[in-house]
């Protein structure tokens, strides 16, 4: 057990944020991606680590599918998404030879890969590393948190949808965070209502209110509600930058507000 963080590939990363849920399909990868894009638009250097070994969604969301991963002398070089190298990504998706191949691994093998991912990616200097996780509270999550622990993550952003089934799993996730000693920065309620583009009636497609109620119950900050937004869905499918392309869109205000709250909650670094 290491007593202190070895100077290594995470030494240049100022702040680490984990995006968790417990419940699948609530939009963890979406929120991770949009948070990273919003932080980058706020002038920060951002990296995204996608440790969802079974369902690595992020390469596609950022138009980086099929990009090759190279080794450098310090380990794996992350994939840069822009010329300025202000946003980079590492995902198991890049390592799959055939994208339709299932990664059918049991726990120990997944743990080993996660450890490698955490320590062997040469991130360089980053303001934020956003770590996207798969759903659940199992091997991968424990491995991720243990591997990141020496680097003192800022905390976890926990994503839910308004429905009780999501909130039910997210309550368990909050327990998991507490047991693992991981600070919860706040709860984000995703898929919070849909405004009909034809008549502007807003419908609670996936029930309502669960996220905010849970935040109050659990005594953690409520960071905001992100509505269902087909423009957002489409840009994620096509791998474009939603924050740049759709500033007037319903989800934009919520996402940028959440990013601002993260920026505000980040302690100032010593120079």
């Amino acid at each position: 057990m290491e007593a202190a963080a070895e100077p290594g590939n995470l030494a240049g990363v100022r702040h680490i944020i984990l995006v968790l849920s417990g419940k699948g399909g609530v939009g963890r990868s979406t929120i991770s991606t949009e948070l990273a894009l919003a932080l980058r638009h706020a002038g920060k250097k951002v990296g995204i680590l996608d440790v969802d070994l079974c369902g690595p969604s992020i390469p596609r969301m950022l138009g980086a599918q099929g990009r090759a991963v190279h080794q450098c002398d310090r380990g794996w070089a992350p994939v840069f998404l822009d010329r300025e190298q202000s946003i980079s990504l590492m995902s198991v998706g890049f390592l799959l030879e055939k994208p339709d191949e299932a990664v059918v691994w049991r726990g120990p093998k997944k743990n080993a890969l996660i450890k490698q991912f955490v320590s062997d990616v040469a991130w360089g200097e980053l303001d934020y590393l956003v770590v996207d996780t798969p759903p659940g509270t199992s091997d991968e999550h424990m491995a991720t948190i243990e591997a990141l622990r020496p680097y003192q993550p800022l905390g976890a952003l926990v994503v839910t949808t308004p429905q009780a089934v999501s909130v039910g799993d997210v309550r368990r996730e909050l327990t998991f965070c507490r047991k693992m000693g991981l600070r919860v920065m706040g709860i984000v309620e995703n898929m919070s209502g849909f405004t009909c583009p034809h008549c502007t009636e807003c419908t609670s497609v996936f029930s309502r209110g669960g996220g905010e109620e849970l935040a109050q119950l659990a005594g953690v900050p409520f960071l905001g509600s992100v509505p269902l937004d087909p423009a957002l869905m489409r840009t994620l499918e096509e791998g474009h930058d939603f924050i740049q392309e759709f500033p007037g869109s319903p989800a934009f205000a919520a996402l940028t507000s959440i990013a601002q709250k993260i920026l505000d909650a980040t302690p100032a670094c010593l120079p």
Partner: protein
Amino acid sequence: MEEVPHAIEEIKEKMKTVKHKILVLSGKGGVGKSTFSAHLAHGLAEDENTQIALLDIDICGPSIPKIMGLEGEQVHQSGSGWSPVYVEDNLGVMSVGFLLSSPDDAVIWRGPKKNGMIKQFLRDVDWGEVDYLIVDTPPGTSDEHLSVVRYLATAHIDGAVIITTPQEVSLQDVRKEINFCRKVKLPIIGVVENMSGFICPKCKKESQIFPPTTGGAELMCQDLEVPLLGRVPLDPLIGKNCDKGQSFFIDAPDSPATLAYRSIIQRIQEFCNLHQSKEENLISS
């Protein structure tokens, strides 16, 4: 490790009273597996003469108790094993959720312990005579999926129903799931495309909240040569009823979503019955 073949034998024995076994899979989280499993169970159980068993093997995120209105229920042990929790006389449910004492309890288990639980669920639950056993699974392709397929290998699974939404981000994972099924020789009953379009309750116009930018399930099914069992549209009443733990079919019997579900359930029954007759022909020939 030596214990495993013995467990498989025990499970095979136990499963002799179970006529049909259906796995509900996805690969992608949040597409409506548990919602579908629950409503498949409700739909099949509408025939009072059919005995239905619903097994939730999502150890980390057991949603079935909530969706079936059974939160807070506990499991009882008898001489013949664990008793399922009954929603109706002919619909019994088992989930790790029933073993947790508080809604905040997290099940933070590694693979081997999860596998042990799944083995117990298959071997120690006293299901009795069952026409359909529906197994709801967690997202992904990991321990739970490998275990359930392995433990039920000799007990014969009728097949898998795979749930997706129209988006490429779901289809991407579902293609992997289909490949997983082929790898482990699990027959695929077909794919269900969930959250397929939304009809505004006010103006009745349709919107695609989750646009099928790459052709949706239809194109994927054509490419991979698997049947598309049907498309279920988004209906806000589904979420509401799941939250209340009620069958959506009762609250909205005429909803397009209910009609879609009923058609899909019928196709699943047809598949299982066809299978059964084939088996019987084989045995008698």
